[in-house]
């Protein structure tokens, strides 16, 4: 079980959070082609290494934020607020 630093509340156990999938996905416009929509909806990076992803402090302050996690070691490399570009 990881420990994650909520931007509002600080370091807490993973059990207080919920995972929200890969971060920085841009929702295409309505008139996008099928391939763009498929990529947005179904295709994910799934790297072995650093992965930018969304989390929500669901049993805490309720804030959504981004973090970068190493998928092999589960090291949390960075935590940053929603709307900020990947560091």
């Amino acid at each position: 079980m990881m420990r994650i630093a909520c931007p509002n509340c600080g370091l807490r156990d993973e059990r207080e959070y919920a995972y929200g999938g890969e971060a920085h996905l841009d929702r295409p416009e309505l008139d996008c082609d099928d391939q763009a929509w498929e990529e947005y909806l179904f295709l994910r990076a799934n790297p072995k290494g650093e992965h930018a992803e969304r989390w929500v402090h669901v049993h805490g302050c309720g804030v959504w934020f981004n973090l970068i996690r190493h998928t092999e070691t589960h090291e949390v490399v960075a935590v940053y607020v929603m709307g900020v570009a990947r560091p």
Partner: protein
Amino acid sequence: MTGYRLSHGGGRIDRGQSIDFSFNGKRYAGLAGDTLASALLANGVQLVGRSFKLHRPRGIVGAGCEETNALVQLEHGISSIPNVQATMIALEEGLVARSINAWPSLTWDIAGVNDRLRGLFSAGFYYKTFMWPDWHWFEWLIRRAAGLGKVPVVPDPQRYEARHVECDLLVIGGGRRGLAAAAQAARDGKSVLLVDLDQGLPSLEGVRTFEKTAALGIWDHGFVLAASEGRVIHRIRAEQIILATGKQERGIAFANNDLPGIMLAGAIGRYVADYAVAPGRSGIFFVNNDLGWRSAIEAAQCGVGVRAIVDARPQVLPELAHRARAHGIDLFFSSLVRSAHGRGRVTGVTIEKPDGLSRLACDFVGVSGGWNPASQLWTMAGGQTKFNERSQSFQPDGLVANVEWAGPEPIEAEPIWTVHGGDEKTMFVDFQTDVTVADIKLAARENYRSVEHLKRYTVLGMGVDQGKLSSVPGAMILAETIGAEPGTLSASKVRPPFVPTAFGLIGADLRGERFRPRRYLPAHEWHVREGAVFEDFGWERPAAYPVGGEDIQAAAEREAAAVRSGVGLFDGSPLGKILVAGPEAAAFLDRVYVGTPSTLKPGRIRYGLVLNENGTILDDGVYARLQDGSFLLSPSSAFADRMVRLLEDLLQCEWPMDVVVQDVTEQYAVWTVAGPNARNVLEALQPSFVLSSERFPHLSVREGQLDGSEVRIQRVSFSGELSYEIQVPAGQAVQMGDALMAAGKPYGLVPYGIEALEILRIEKGYIHVGTDTDSETQPGDIGFGGAIAKKQSDFLGRRALTRRSSLSPNRKQLVGLTSLCGGILPVGGHVRAPSGQSGGFVTSSQFSPVLGRGVALGLVEQGQRRLGEIVEIVSLGKRWQARISETVAYDREGGRLDT
């Protein structure tokens, strides 16, 4: 009787304190400080169980957590704990234990016949032997004969406790290295926790110590679970972990090496030194390393009869040879034990010496096939291992963040895993799962060449000990068999828990209602008073209110009929209530709902669908516009929590707009008054607003007073009747319920439950998302294609609705299904397509009291274009004829909504 208590010595026992216990129904006496295993050995009990597959007699092999044979069922009255290692049980007065695998009895064992049929029980035997003619012919026998313990038949009465612990440094293992590391860290001012399986550790200043505590596993970021005496689970968060878990001895595979009386050499050393227990009077030690010699010499020093040491190596340190000879021990170098002899227990061995074979009598054998680092927790933490040639073992290697390996120096050992020349079908590698050298070789011949495949095919290492004795020898024997370089195949990875652990302990306090608290309606006591039968729908909700011995079905039909003919009262409090407010609230909701909330006038209500981005219907429900910039959403009870999270997700991550979301679901109770007389009931309670349809039409909302209480009333209907949903603060739920019952009395008002609601909504073709829709159902499939065509702007799921599959004419669509014989169609029954395959299914079905026949809904391929068609419905071998019909079976014009 072979084992006995020595007349002196025994560092852990108290000879002044006798302890009575029972094993397999017989009474014995042990001493304070004994384990169950040491007490059994002291009483001469050699046979402790039967093996899992072949039912061969088995004795105690180890002295600690490596024990593989001596698993017992610990009994406490009618409850019991299966699969406990006898070596890990501190003896207590009155303890009752049984062998776990000895049906019908330990000494006369009918399944012992398996041993003579062992050819049938080779690797993969489940897959090969019992497939003809049908596995089920054999299943009962196998399940009965091949078990590891019995599952207790009553709920676990044990009370478990969970504690949270934080520390700078966690040291696992209280040996020399562990104690030193802990003491040093404490001197450096760190908060230190030390855990060890054993007891009697020295107390160190500034170090918290948990004895009789097993670290079960290591997870991310220094999280460790540790179990104390099987009763307390510690959830430990450590900044740094030092693993001082020591080493574990392994055996050697020779013919009949599983006979009771054959033990690990180091275990014999511990029984002699700690418990003054001798496993027998005349022993032979078969070793490939110096520590095996030390165990033999220590035993001899304590007065145990050691007849010979058989060493695979050509020589040994002169000091060891000298000391052994001084105790009269015969020494055989470059020699092996080829096989053991005896029925039910070992009575002798055949030794293979450079000058030939000879036979020696004995009543116990100590085996030391080398030593492995106890690296299980290291690998769980993600650590790598590297083969060490000198010790023939896999040593921790590399780095793991915040975890340090502080294990012992590798012990030099001769590579000797099997002794050739004996019957390989009796050369056991894993005792607990009955895997032999022959099984490993068979698996290799059948091309199972990785340790993971070997493990699954042969079940090597899959016992509750997770192969502490067998994993490394198994991997080495496989490598030898397939001609791989030694050490290129390492042991398969171990998973938590490190020692067998009760599920109850892992859950600890989180059990029953503490795990999943029940949610009660604000007016729960009111429903109890009205005679409700409750069911768990996420909330404890009235299913029905039976009277005069009615069953639920009869009560539901009576209640539904009363709503149609008079008036009923329903508690809809779990219905979601979410306030969405702000200057951009309407624009935001336009992106969420299939419909267009921004065109709704204040005071009015509309029905809407919410989709996911795949176009699938997530939920349906109404939303009311309270004021220009404020909406009240009513998602279904089951979706309310998720709806709040969805809206927050969208606002924080996708569309940052000037909107706030507030979940007020639990702040208000909801009473629904439905039926032709609903308005009369409300009129009797002095409403502060006009109830007429002109002033308060269907699909509108009013705030004001009713019976002197502040209320919000929505005119919506899930029954098809004139209906008012009255929201009151949760604290006034009972009071409002009483007032409505009193006001409704002249009109015969009855309370109705979920079952009656089901009848009413199916009669009207109102869907229940998740019941009448599935993970493929889109708005067009339930008749909402038009709403989408009209809307220009984007909303959740809209893009997905333009995909080819979404536009296909062959989609399953919601329809009504009417049984031709008037009966009730089976939910889940399939609609037979012309191809003979399934072309849809029944989603909801009930008996309609108002129509006097069954009504049903279903998802049927191209259903909307097939109205009137007769189809066959198939379920569990039965068939029904049904007509595809409109979804609305009752009051198709909707006139009753506006009585």
